[in-house]
């Protein structure tokens, strides 16, 4: 799986810890520009990991198109039915306290872990 690295953001999959690590600012223009990130997320699901950890602790900004992509990913994981999922975030990044709880509404078994 190829990591994504740009000046503004990065997405990496660490297979050993089943962690997808997102950093920087996701402010891409709509579904088309988010396609590489969406593909990486789908590839992770297709590997049938024992669990999925979405690490957003250093994702400073996310636009609503990005919320759409991460939400769709959570729905895909939910549809698999048997992959436990944790979203890790930070209380010091204000959008995370406001918007990440919506992911739990999509997948009630999702664990939301916001560090202080």
């Amino acid at each position, binding site marked *: 799986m190829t990591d994504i690295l740009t000046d503004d953001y990065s997405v990496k999959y660490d297979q050993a810890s089943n962690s997808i690590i997102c950093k920087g600012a996701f402010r891409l*223009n*709509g*579904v*088309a520009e988010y*396609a590489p990130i969406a593909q990486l997320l789908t590839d992770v699901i297709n590997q049938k990991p024992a669990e999925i950890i979405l690490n957003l602790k250093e994702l400073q900004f996310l636009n*609503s198109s990005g919320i759409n992509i991460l939400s769709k990913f959570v*729905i895909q994981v939910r549809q698999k039915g048997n992959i436990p999922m944790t979203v890790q975030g930070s209380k010091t*990044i204000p959008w995370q306290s406001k918007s990440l709880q919506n992911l739990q*509404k999509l997948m009630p078994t999702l664990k939301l872990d916001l560090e*202080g």
Partner: protein
Amino acid sequence: MEQKIFGDYRLDLPTTKQYITIVFAPLSLPVKWSNIGLSADFIGQYFEAYFPEKEVSDRDITTGHEIKHSISYIANELMENAVKFNQDKALEISLRVRLGFEELIFVACNSVATEKLPSFEKFIHDLISGDPGELLIRRIEENARAGSSSKASGLGLLTIMNDYKAKVGWKFEAIPGKSEVGVVYTMVRLGFST
């Protein structure tokens, strides 16, 4: 149609003389997508200076820090929408942000095709007639089912209303001498307490 108001659009707000306006004129200079985020961050940082650095109840962040991020998110979403949906490149796209007494007032402006007004009015009606939290979840589920055809997720205004607890309204205005294009103003009011 001369003028139409929807949702929480206020015509009677007291105005302050100091404000920031970002203007894009796509015909003279193409809009660079990265400049939208850059502008949003600037506006957030600019207004942060007017907010005290105090602790917010149970969260380890300051009012200024939180307001900066909220302004940046809302300004970014409004500018992204205005650029995406602007109809006539000859007309300006703008975002103006003012600091009021108890709220920040954002007004985005872009042109819209008159023939698209009925569907836009329906979109607005759906937004303001239900619970934004339920609408947001429903919209996310619909987007996941629908695939990737749509140009916009439709989540920007819903997250502004639900996650940021802001009030949203719209004003349509006809342009004299132009029947095929009008102007839409989107107002967002973000309350704060200091």
